[in-house]
């Protein structure tokens, strides 16, 4: 009997102990250690706040020389010519906002659709119906398939987020651009008068960048929107059904308005990601210092400018690039803080219910 022998072992072991060693108040060393440990945890927590301050100050401090030299003109002017020491980042700011907003429109349409699809259990329903036609819907193994498929789909969408952005960039460069180029050039020939199609797509450009960017922000929006939709109290849904609403009357009239704050927070965070996204854009947007609305023209974004210019920057260029980084930091910090605040409010509201 193992348990008896282990019990006797424990008894023998305990018999050798000095009770005073166990049942004693913490020694001075232990108390000192406890205190030091608490302080350490506190310091590490405070470090997070200091880190943000340090990040901002480090970049701002390094940008100071350029700020003094160019002032706010830096943000308004459009030429970037290191040889003439003329620097302006308006095209980059425009490119950043333009690509991010376009990607946000596409990404949130598909992201919210996927969130509804996931939270309503459509896939499970489809699989269940399929099983029903072969009469396996209550089978002990096959009957679990609907749940399994739901989980699989959720994980697949999360997997989209796990693929590194440089891999999406590579894919966009060698697969997407050759694939969409004929269609884009056809559009340009037929509808060249329309501002969005006013140039040909000769390689990298806004459209491939937006395409890849929207894929990259989709998982963020889907995950947060799905959480918001799932946390809508079930009684609201039941009440809507009870009043005779159809499924989509319920979704559009009850579920989406109730979850709107969470969905909005997810979209704002997705926007923040799109603004800061670097690699896919550096590879796909074309790095042309151009102020354009055409979808097929090359352009540039702040993050791509930093990624492309920093490795070759001389001592003179660094403050200028730091200034550009500061502008990007300001834009993303504002967007992220708004997103985090909205989400926090949404969470608070859900708890209050």
């Amino acid at each position, binding site marked *: 009997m193992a348990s008896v022998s282990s019990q006797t072992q424990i008894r023998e072991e305990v018999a050798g102990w000095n009770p005073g060693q166990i049942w004693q*108040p*913490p020694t001075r060393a232990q108390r000192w*250690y*406890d205190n030091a*440990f*608490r302080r350490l*945890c506190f310091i*590490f*927590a*405070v*470090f*997070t*706040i200091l*880190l*943000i301050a340090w*990040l901002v100050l*480090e*970049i701002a*401090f390094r940008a100071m020389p350029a700020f003094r030299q160019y002032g706010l003109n830096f943000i308004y002017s459009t030429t970037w010519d290191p040889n003439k020491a003329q620097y302006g980042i308006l095209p980059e700011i425009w490119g950043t906002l333009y690509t991010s907003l376009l990607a946000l429109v596409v990404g949130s349409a*598909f992201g919210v*659709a*996927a969130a509804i*699809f996931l939270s309503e259990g*459509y896939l499970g329903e489809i699989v269940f119906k399929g099983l029903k036609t072969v009469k396996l819907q209550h089978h002990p193994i096959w009957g679990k398939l609907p749940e399994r498929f739901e989980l699989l*789909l959720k994980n*697949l*969408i999360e*997997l989209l987020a*796990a693929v*590194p*952005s*440089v*891999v*999406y*960039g*590579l*894919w966009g*460069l060698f697969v997407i651009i050759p694939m969409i180029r004929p269609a884009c050039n056809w559009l340009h020939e037929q509808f060249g008068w329309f501002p969005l199609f006013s140039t040909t797509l000769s390689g990298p450009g806004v459209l491939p960048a937006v395409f890849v960017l929207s894929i990259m922000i989709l998982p963020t929006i889907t995950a947060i929107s799905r959480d918001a939709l799932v946390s809508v109290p079930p009684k609201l849904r039941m009440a809507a059904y009870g009043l005779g609403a*159809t*499924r989509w*009357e319920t979704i559009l009239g009850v579920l989406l308005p109730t979850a709107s704050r969470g969905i909005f927070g997810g979209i704002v*965070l997705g926007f923040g990601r799109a603004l*800061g*996204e*670097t*690699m896919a854009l*550096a*590879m796909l947007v074309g790095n042309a210092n151009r102020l354009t609305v055409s979808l097929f023209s090359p352009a540039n974004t702040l*993050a791509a400018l*930093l*990624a492309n210019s*920093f490795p070759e920057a001389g001592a003179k260029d*660094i403050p200028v690039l*730091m200034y550009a*980084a500061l502008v*990007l*930091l300001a834009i*993303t910090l504002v967007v*992220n803080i708004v997103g*985090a605040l909205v989400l926090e409010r949404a969470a608070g509201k859900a708890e209050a219910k």
Partner: protein
Amino acid sequence: MSKDRISSKQELIPAQNDPVPNPFEGVDFAELELSLYRPRTLITIILSSLVTCMTFLALIPLFAVLWMLIWRGGQKLSLALFTQLPPAPLEQGGGFGNAIVGTLIMVGLAALITVPLGVLAGVYLAEAKGSQLAEVVRFAAKVLTGFPSILAGVFAYGAVVLATGGYSAIAGAIALSILMLPTIILTSESAVAMVPAKMKEASIGLGATGAQTVWMVLLPTAMPGILTGVMLAVARAAGETAPLLFTALFSNYWLASSGRVDFMQPTASLAVLIYNFSGMPFANQVELAWAAALVLVLLVLIFNLIGQSFSQPQIQQ
């Protein structure tokens, strides 16, 4: 007996032999079924199919990327990739052994920095629940989650590269650690907060100090959740390119030269190799970029799966 009262009662209670009134009388059941001819249900059918199509459309890129990786990267996959150095332009063959080692070393260094910092900060957040400071720290961590990766690189460039005078693995690791920190803090906090209060109270009741409770009860119990967070952060950091572009730069050589490992020199990484080689006009380099992308995605997936395997037992409980 007054007849009126009886008759009024009889009105209230239906007579036994009367047929039970049908509550659905006059309801047209066909009216309630999904049908293409009625606008209400037509909209439901249209929107349901629209949402289904959009979800599957959204998944196509994922499969397209994975398929291209396996197709184009898999062709090139061989053992030599893991042991050889990157080729010079126009040179055939070659591999990216140094980039794999560089990625692992930088991610490892970043984990060494962030795990103690992040886990203990998470413990603080979970323990000091109501305090104002904890709220601010939590908010700071949430804001830091959305911090653009390129700015982490810019910061490390200013704080480390300019200060130490050169590109190095250390600078790359510091840039990565900024991106890992918030994930680790937030997941450790929620993992520690999920430990049942009675376990903590039992430990305190037995006379353990706060530090003893944390080390012997909270952290061991919360370990699966913490490990999941760490692995997710590691997976994210392994795939990051932007913070490494101008902190670790790139190198065509091994990190160790003549038996000594020097962390203060430019270091190769898989992600930067993909970026550099994808822009080159040489077929061999582009092929290598695809193979490196396959290896990188596999690496990230492995980290993710390890992380999820830790969280599995928790879900079943």
